C-alpha cells in the first residue's frame, strides 16, 4: 500500500500487435516518483511503441495502465499532456516552418498572451537550460542537435510529472550532453520522474536509477543500476554475451585512394585530405562544424566553389551523386527518413535502390536478381522484418538504418561515406555494422565515417580528422592520442 | 440606386474624358473620332473574335477610336471591362454580354457616367432595357424558332428530332433552346431527346450524337444542333454510322455551315450576319454620341441558308 503511493506509473500486462509483429508482449513496469528510469533494448524491442502507447499515440491491445493513481483506459496525446505526461519522441517532433518560440509553446499560444509573451517565456526556458538558440529562428534552419535541445525545452515547458525521453541524446554533442545531464538531475530533484531510453549505455549508467531491459517485446529484467554491469546488460539485451563492443580495428591501410584538394564552399574553407585504401577515416567535430557538408560536397550533392578530387591517382570530376556512384562511392545520409529511405516503399525496394543500375542490362531490369539482392541483404544484416515486401515505414529505427547501409554493401563501394551510421542503433546492430565496415576495408575499400560518439570513432577508425567551423583543424592517430586532446581541437 | 455618388462619378468620368482629349489618346487615329469600348463576349470563341475583327476594321473606316476588351465568357469580367471603359472615359460602350442579366448594374454606372451604351448580339431583358441606348443584333430565340420552323416545313407530317445544345447555361444556348421549344409548340414534331455540352466543343456534340444514334437509331429524322461547328460532329457521327438523309439544322452561318449546306450534309444553316450587326452598332453609337436620332432596336435579320440560296449569299469569312 505504502509503496503504491509512490508510483507515478504502473504498467501491467500491456500487449500490442502490429500486422505480423508482436511489438509488446505482456509488458509490466513500475516507475516510482522522482527517479530516472532507464529502458534499454535492441532495435525493435518495443521501447518506442510502449512510449507511444503511454502518450496516447497508439492504442494498447491488452493490459492496464495506471498513471498517478488513476487507471487510464484510453488516452490521447492532449489528455496525456494535461495529466502531466510529456514525451520527447524519437523522431523529431517540431514544426519546421515555425519559430523556435512558437514550437516550444505549440498549441498554447493564448496562454502566453500572444507572440511576444510566447517568445519571452521561451527565452526564459532556453536560458534556464543554458541554450543560446534565438527564439525567432525557424526550426527548419536549426541543426539536428539544436532541434533536440528545442524538443527538450518543449517537454520542460509542460508542468509534467513524468517526462519520457526516447533517445534524446542521439544527436547531441558532448557539451550539450552535459547540459542534458544537469537538467535531468534538476528534474529528478524536483520529484519528477523520467523515462530515459538510449542506446548509449554510458548515459544509462550515468543518469539512471533503475533500468529495465527489453528484448523482442518482452521485459527481460528490471534492476537498480548498481546491481548491473555493462556486459551483463548487453548480454541481456541481445540474448547472448558480447565480448567486445567494438571488433578489432582493421589494419589494411594501403596506397592513397581518394585525394581531396582545395575544397571550398560557402561554409567550408580549404579542405584537403587523403583517404587511403583499406582505411577508416573518422571525422570528429561539434554539431554544425560542417562535417556533413564536407562529405556532401565530395559526393557532389551540394554546390561547391572549388574542388579537386584525385581517385587512384587520376583526377576525377564529381558534380553529382551520379558521378560519385559511378566512381564507386556510396553515401549513407544522416537523416534516414528524409534522405535515406522511401518510407512508403517495401524493405526490398529500399534495399535494391542503389544496385538497380548495376543489375539492369541495357536499361532492362531483372526481377529475379532484385529478389536475390533483397533476400541476401536481409539475411546478411539480420534485418528484422516480416518479409521483404513489408513497408519500411513500420520497421524500427535501427532496422531502417540497416536497409540504407545494405543498399550500398551490394555494390562493394570503393569509398563508403557513413554519416552517423549508428545513430539510434542498438549495441548488437552496431556491432554488426562495425563488422561490415571492417569487411569493406578488408576488400580494399575505404570508409569515411562521421560520428558524434567519440568512443566509436576512436575504436573504429585508423585516422581521425577534427573539423571545426568549416576547417580541418587536426589529424590524429586514435591509438596514440588522448580523447581530450581531440575534443580540444574540435572545439577550435 | 445611389444618386449622389452617381453624380460625382459622372463629373469624374467627364473630367477623365476631357483629360483624354487634352493629352490626345495614344491610340487615336483621327482628332474628332469618338472613342468606343468594344467588349467582346469571348475572344476564344470563333464567332465573337470574328465580329471583333470586323468591328476593328469597320471602326478604322469610320474614323472611330475603338478599343476591344475581352470578357472571356465570364460575367464578372464583363462588369470589370465596363468599369475599365468608364475609367478610360470612352464615349460609347458596345457590349456583347456573356450574361445580359449580369451586366445591368455595371451598365447603370456607365449610363450615370454619361456614356452611350449599346448592346450587341444579345439584348437585355425587357425590364432593364432602360439602361441601354440601343441594341443591334440577331435574336437567338428567333434563331431557335427559325430552326423549328425549318424542321416543321421539311416534315409537315411530323417527325422525330433530337436537339444538341451548346455550352450548358451559355446565353446563346439558353435562348436557342427556348426558341426551339417555343417554335415546335403546337406542331406534331416529337423531340426524342435533348442534351447540352460542357463546352462549345465539336467532340462533345459528336459523342452525344453517337449515343443518340445507338439509342434511337433510324428513328431520328432530324437534328437541331446549336452551332455549325457542332454540326460537323453530328455529321461525322452519322457518317460513321452510315446513316443518310437525316435533316440537320444548325445556327451560326459560319463557313463550316455554308460548306455543309453546299455538300448537302446539312439541310439548313441559320446564319447571322456579323458585318451588318457591326456596321449598324457603330453607326448607332456615332449617332448617339453626336446626339442625332437613331433606331433603338435594330434587328438584323437571320438568313435561313439552304441549298437553294447558299450560292447567292455572300460566303462568310469565318
Amino acid at each position: 500500500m505504502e509503496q503504491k503511493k509512490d508510483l507515478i506509473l504502473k504498467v501491467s500486462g500491456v500487449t500490442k500487435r502490429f500486422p505480423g509483429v508482436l511489438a509488446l508482449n505482456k509488458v509490466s513496469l513500475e516507475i516510482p516518483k522522482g527517479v530516472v528510469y532507464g529502458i534499454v533494448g535492441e532495435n525493435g524491442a518495443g521501447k518506442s511503441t510502449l512510449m507511444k502507447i503511454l502518450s496516447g499515440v497508439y492504442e494498447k491491445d491488452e493490459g492496464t495502465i495506471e498513471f498517478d493513481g488513476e487507471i487510464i483506459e484510453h488516452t490521447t496525446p492532449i489528455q496525456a499532456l494535461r495529466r502531466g505526461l510529456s514525451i520527447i519522441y524519437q523522431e523529431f517532433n517540431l514544426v519546421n516552418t515555425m519559430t523556435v518560440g512558437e514550437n516550444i509553446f505549440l498549441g498554447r499560444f493564448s496562454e502566453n498572451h500572444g507572440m511576444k509573451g510566447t517568445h519571452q517565456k521561451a527565452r526564459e526556458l532556453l536560458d534556464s537550460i543554458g541554450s543560446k538558440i534565438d527564439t525567432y529562428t525557424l526550426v527548419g534552419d536549426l541543426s539536428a542537435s539544436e532541434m533536440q535541445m528545442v524538443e527538450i525545452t518543449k517537454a520542460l515547458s509542460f508542468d509534467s510529472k513524468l517526462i519520457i525521453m526516447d533517445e534524446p541524446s542521439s544527436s547531441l554533442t558532448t557539451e550539450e550532453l552535459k547540459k542534458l545531464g544537469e537538467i535531468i538531475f534538476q528534474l529528478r530533484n524536483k520529484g519528477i520522474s523520467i523515462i530515459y531510453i538510449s542506446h548509449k549505455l554510458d548515459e544509462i549508467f550515468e543518469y539512471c536509477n533503475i533500468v529495465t531491459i527489453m528484448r523482442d517485446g518482452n521485459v527481460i529484467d528490471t534492476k537498480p543500476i548498481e546491481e548491473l554491469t555493462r556486459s551483463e546488460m548487453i548480454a541481456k539485451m541481445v540474448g547472448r554475451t558480447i565480448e567486445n563492443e567494438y571488433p578489432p580495428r582493421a589494419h589494411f591501410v594501403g596506397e592513397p585512394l581518394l585525394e581531396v584538394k582545395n575544397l571550398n564552399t560557402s561554409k567550408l574553407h580549404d579542405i584537403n585530405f587523403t583517404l587511403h585504401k583499406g582505411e577508416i577515416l573518422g571525422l570528429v567535430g561539434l554539431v554544425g562544424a560542417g562535417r556533413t557538408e564536407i562529405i556532401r560536397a565530395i559526393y557532389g550533392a551540394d554546390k561547391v566553389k572549388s574542388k579537386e578530387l584525385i581517385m587512384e591517382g587520376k583526377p576525377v570530376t564529381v558534380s553529382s551523386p551520379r558521378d560519385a556512384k559511378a566512381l564507386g562511392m556510396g553515401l549513407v545520409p544522416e537523416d534516414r527518413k528524409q534522405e535515406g529511405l522511401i518510407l512508403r516503399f517495401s524493405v526490398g525496394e529500399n534495399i535494391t535502390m542503389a544496385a538497380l543500375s548495376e543489375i539492369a542490362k541495357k536499361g532492362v531490369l531483372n526481377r529475379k536478381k532484385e529478389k536475390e539482392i533483397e533476400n541476401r541483404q536481409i539475411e546478411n544484416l539480420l534485418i528484422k522484418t516480416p518479409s521483404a515486401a513489408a513497408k519500411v515505414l513500420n520497421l524500427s529505427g535501427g532496422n531502417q538504418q540497416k536497409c540504407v547501409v545494405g543498399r550500398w554493401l551490394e555494390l562493394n563501394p570503393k569509398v563508403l561515406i557513413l554519416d552517423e551510421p549508428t545513430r539510434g542503433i542498438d549495441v548488437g546492430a552496431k556491432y554488426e555494422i562495425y563488422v561490415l565496415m571492417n569487411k569493406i576495408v578488408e576488400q580494399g575499400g575505404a570508409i569515411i565515417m562521421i560520428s558524434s560518439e567519440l568512443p566509436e570513432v576512436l575504436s573504429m577508425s585508423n585516422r581521425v580528422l577534427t573539423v571545426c567551423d568549416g576547417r580541418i583543424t587536426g589529424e590524429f592517430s586514435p591509438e596514440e592520442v588522448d580523447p581530450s586532446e581531440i575534443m580540444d581541437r574540435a572545439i577550435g | 440606386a445611389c444618386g449622389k455618388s452617381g453624380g460625382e462619378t459622372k463629373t469624374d468620368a467627364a473630367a477623365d474624358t476631357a483629360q483624354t482629349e487634352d493629352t490626345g489618346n495614344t491610340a487615336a487615329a483621327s482628332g474628332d473620332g469618338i472613342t468606343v469600348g468594344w467588349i467582346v463576349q469571348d475572344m476564344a470563341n470563333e464567332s465573337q473574335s470574328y465580329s471583333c475583327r470586323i468591328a476593328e476594321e469597320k471602326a478604322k473606316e469610320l474614323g472611330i477610336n475603338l478599343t476591344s476588351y475581352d470578357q472571356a465568357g465570364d460575367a464578372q469580367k464583363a462588369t470589370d471591362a465596363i468599369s475599365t471603359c468608364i475609367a478610360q472615359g470612352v464615349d460609347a460602350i458596345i457590349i456583347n454580354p456573356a450574361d445580359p442579366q449580369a451586366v445591368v448594374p455595371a451598365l447603370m454606372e456607365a449610363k450615370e457616367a454619361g456614356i452611350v451604351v449599346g448592346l450587341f448580339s444579345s439584348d437585355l431583358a425587357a425590364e432593364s432595357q432602360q439602361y441601354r441606348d440601343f441594341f443591334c443584333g440577331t435574336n437567338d430565340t428567333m434563331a431557335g424558332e427559325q430552326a423549328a420552323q425549318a424542321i416543321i416545313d421539311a416534315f409537315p407530317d411530323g417527325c422525330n428530332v433530337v436537339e444538341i445544345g451548346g455550352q450548358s447555361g451559355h446565353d446563346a444556348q439558353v435562348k436557342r433552346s427556348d426558341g426551339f421549344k417555343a417554335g415546335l409548340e403546337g406542331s406534331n414534331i416529337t423531340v426524342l431527346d435533348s442534351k447540352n455540352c460542357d463546352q462549345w466543343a465539336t467532340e462533345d456534340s459528336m459523342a452525344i450524337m453517337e449515343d443518340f444514334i445507338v439509342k434511337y437509331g433510324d428513328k431520328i429524322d432530324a437534328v437541331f444542333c446549336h452551332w455549325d461547328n457542332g454540326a460537323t460532329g453530328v455529321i461525322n457521327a452519322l457518317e460513321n454510322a452510315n446513316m443518310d438523309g437525316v435533316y440537320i439544322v444548325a445556327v451560326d452561318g459560319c463557313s463550316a455551315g455554308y460548306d455543309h449546306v453546299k455538300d448537302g450534309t446539312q439541310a439548313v444553316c441559320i446564319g447571322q450576319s456579323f458585318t451588318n450587326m457591326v456596321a449598324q452598332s457603330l453607326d448607332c453609337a456615332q449617332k448617339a454620341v453626336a446626339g442625332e436620332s437613331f433606331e433603338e432596336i435594330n434587328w438584323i435579320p437571320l438568313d435561313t441558308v439552304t441549298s437553294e440560296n447558299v450560292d447567292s449569299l455572300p460566303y462568310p469569312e469565318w
Partner: protein
Amino acid sequence: MDTKRVFIKAKQVLLKQKAVLAILAMLILMLFFNTQFYSVYNWMNVFRSATVQGIIAMGVTMTVLCAACDLSVGGIMCLSGVITVLMINSGMPIAVACLCALLAGAAVGLVNGFLVVHQRTEPFIITLGMGTLLKGICQQLTDAHPIACTNMEFMKISNTKIFGHIPILVLYMAIILVIFFCVLRFTTYGRNCYAIGGNYDVAKYSGINTVMIKWSTFVISGVMAALAGILLSSRMNSASSVYGDNTGMLVNCGVVIGGTSFAGGIGGVVQSFIGVFVLQLMSNCMDCLGIGAYVQQLLQGIIIVLILGFDCFGRLRKREHV
C-alpha cells in the same frame, strides 16, 4: 534590435514576394503610358474587381495553410448566388436568403472537411470533384438559365458607394482582410492552423485538435465562398450556373502566387490578397494599354510561370540542396 528585425523582414518580404515586385514593375511601367490607369476611379475599379476573388482567397488561404486546398469554391460561389436569388425571387426577405446561402456554403465546407480531414482523402482531387457536383446542382436548380433578381434592394448590397468614390465592396474586402489577418496572427486558432500545415503529426502530438481545426477551415472556406457568391450576385443582380467556372483554379493560383505555400504552414491572407490582386491589376493594365486578348492570356501565363518559378528558385538557392 526590433527595428533591425523589422528592416530585415521588409527586405525579406520584398525579395521573397515576387508578386509585390511584379506589382511594382507594373506601376512603374504604367507611368510611361498615357492612360487613365492612375485615376481614382480606375484604382477603385481594380480593387472592386479583386474583391470577389479576394474574399474567396481568404477562406482558401486557411485551407492551404493547413496543407490542403479547396477547388470547390467556384461551385460554392455559384450555388450560393443561385440559392440567394431564387429565394429572394420567391419572396423571402433578403437577409434570410443570404443566411441560407451562407449555410449552404458551410454545409458544403462541412462535407469537404469530412472527406478531406476525417476520411483523409486528397483535397485537390476531392474538391475538384465537388466543384463539378455543385455546378450540376446549380444547373438543375436554374435549368441552366441565368436568373435576374426581381428585388432591386438586393443590388444595393454590392453596388453602393461610400464617401462618394469608394465602392462598398472594397470596404467589405478591407474589413474581412483585417479580421482574417488578426485571427491568423493573434489567436491560438490561427497559430494552430500554421502548426497543422507545418507538420500535422507534430501538431496532433502537441495536443492541438487537428481534425476539428483543419475541418473548420473548410467550413470557413465554404462560408467565404458563399459570401463572395452573394456579393457577386448582388453586384450583377443575377445568378447563373456558369459563374465561377474557373474561379477555383484562379483563386488557388492567386493564393500560391502571393506566397502562401501549397505545402502548408507558410504564408498568410495578406500575401494571398496580393496574389489575387496582381492578376487583377495585370489584366487592368493590359486592358488600359489595349493589348489583345490572346496576348493578354500569353502574358498572364508567362507572369504566373515567372513568379512561381522564381519562388521555387529562391527556395532552392537558400538550401543549396541537390
